[in-house]
């Protein structure tokens, strides 16, 4: 069998297999991945490599760009924090309690994944505008301010914390809580000292996923933000603005900064997930 194994099999397989199709499947996967993802992505890095370092630095640290980072990172962080707090409550309620229409509500939690961002954008803008259903009751402006950016980023990050916490909560052994109660812990102590430490890695993962998603978000934000330079202009919009002015280098330089931030987050999230799995003893 080994004799007639192909070059790819001999070079890559670490365990012998009788199943066919490895060469074809891996070859196609790598080719498709390269053409659709890797080569186009490398274009961004190669484009910035043609810039001189000072030109790159000026492009990515101009005051208007810095203001957009502050808004994007700040609002993403705020949205992810709100989602961490309320997502924990929602996940807890959905796993632990019974109440009317629970299944329906559970299914609807994924709405921000399924609803196109442009639809979410105009819906939130209409709601939080000064004459909108919610906006008219608020003493301050939300639509067309940085606060609007925060609202949109909270919406799109909502499912992440809930969906990472739910399976962990479902698998939680009741014995831990019983043991804590037997040893005289109050319910709050049990939550704080027993349940929460088990949930913490998943909570942090959900938080990081929501944050990462918010950093790159565009569609739901641009309608509600008002898009004033230095005030309510997010970084992805700034990239588009530069593109429309045919400043390809400027746009790509900012894109590379955002890409690097996203990749660092991705590595962090992978590490977090590994930690979460080892915490759960899997």
């Amino acid at each position, binding site marked *: 069998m080994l004799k007639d194994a192909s070059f790819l099999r001999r070079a890559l*397989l*670490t*365990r012998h*297999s*009788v*199943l*066919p*199709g490895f060469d074809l*499947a891996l070859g*196609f*996967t790598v080719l*498709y*991945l390269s053409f*659709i*993802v890797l080569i*186009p992505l490398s*274009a*961004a890095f190669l484009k910035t490599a043609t810039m001189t370092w000072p030109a790159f630095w000026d492009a990515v640290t101009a005051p208007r760009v810095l203001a957009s980072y502050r808004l994007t990172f700040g609002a993403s962080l705020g949205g992810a924090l709100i989602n961490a707090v*309320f997502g924990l*409550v*929602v996940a*807890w309620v959905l796993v632990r*309690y019974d*109440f009317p229409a629970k299944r329906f*509500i559970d*299914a*609807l939690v*994924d*709405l*921000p*994944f*399924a*609803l*196109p*961002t*442009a*639809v979410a954008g*105009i*819906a*939130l803008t209409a709601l939080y505008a000064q004459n909108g*259903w*919610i906006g008219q009751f608020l003493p301050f402006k939300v639509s067309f301010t940085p606060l609007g950016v925060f609202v949109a980023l*909270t*919406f799109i990050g*909502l499912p992440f914390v809930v969906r990472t916490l739910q399976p962990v909560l479902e698998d939680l052994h*009741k014995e831990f*809580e019983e043991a804590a109660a037997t040893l005289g812990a109050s*319910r709050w102590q049990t939550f704080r000292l027993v349940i929460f430490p088990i949930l913490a890695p998943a909570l942090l993962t959900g938080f990081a996923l929501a944050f990462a998603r918010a950093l*790159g*978000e*565009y*569609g739901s934000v641009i309608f509600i933000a008002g898009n004033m330079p230095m005030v309510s202009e997010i970084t*992805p919009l700034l*990239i*588009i603005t530069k*593109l429309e002015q045919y400043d*390809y280098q400027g746009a790509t330089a900012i*894109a590379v900064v955002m890409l690097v931030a*996203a990749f660092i987050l*991705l590595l962090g999230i992978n590490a977090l997930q590994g930690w979460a799995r080892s915490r759960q003893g899997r």
Partner: protein
Amino acid sequence: MTTTPVPLAPPRLRNATTEPAWVKWTLIGVALAFLTFFLFIPLAIVFVEALKKGWGVYLAAVVEPDAVSAIQLTLIAAAISVPMNLVFGVAAAWCIAKFEFKGKSLLLTLIDLPFSVSPVISGLIFVLVFGLQGWFGEWLRDHDLKVIFAVPGIVLATVFITFPFVARELIPLMQAQGTEQEEAARVLGANGWQIFWRVTLPNVKWALLYGVILCNARAMGEFGAVSVVSGHIRGQTNTMPLHIEILYNEYQFAAAFAVASLLALLALVTLGLKYAVEQRVKHQKRDATTGVNE
């Protein structure tokens, strides 16, 4: 004569592993209030605003030629990108789940990459490759081909954005299912395609459908990436989300929400299907990790 034993009245003790009722209902209240403000009301307002000026305006907005061509383009983009990523997802899952090879974890990370790239940047990279100033820009112009500001660019950006969906649903399930059934089929003399069609595919069909549903929803709803490569030519390179943006910026709110309501309906259908399929996948995963292999 039998009498059922009368249980002693239980002492008024609270179950030590549940919360007092007031805590429970407060938490439910908080959760529902949060979801109401951030989910239910935004969903409701789409339909309310769409029908504000009556069914006549609603229908007119949906059957108007620009809207129809936007709907067509959205369907075309999804009809091309979903099958492409479906084939890719199956191929990737086959080699990753059924074989042990060097560089596997790197491959897994790279497959997830498009999820962490901002939609705007996903569009930008295709402009850098196929745009007039890009790598193939001059060659494409000389041969009178258009990718950016045309349908191929929209399809490419959509393929990129929805790249991991099918693969990431299939891989964990197929890894959990292992290779024993396929190996048995092989030993019994089945060839590769027979193994795939008769053993592997029936085992993963629900996860496959699940991935396709998610992939399709994202393909039809993508806004940022498509916005960068489309050029916004009415009646030609406008997808439904881009059409919504144009209507909204022209203050045609009822029309914008009418088209938006179609996409919101699609989202609801997606969630319904997703929920139904999710139950089946859960069963299959449980079978894969317990029963069958023992």
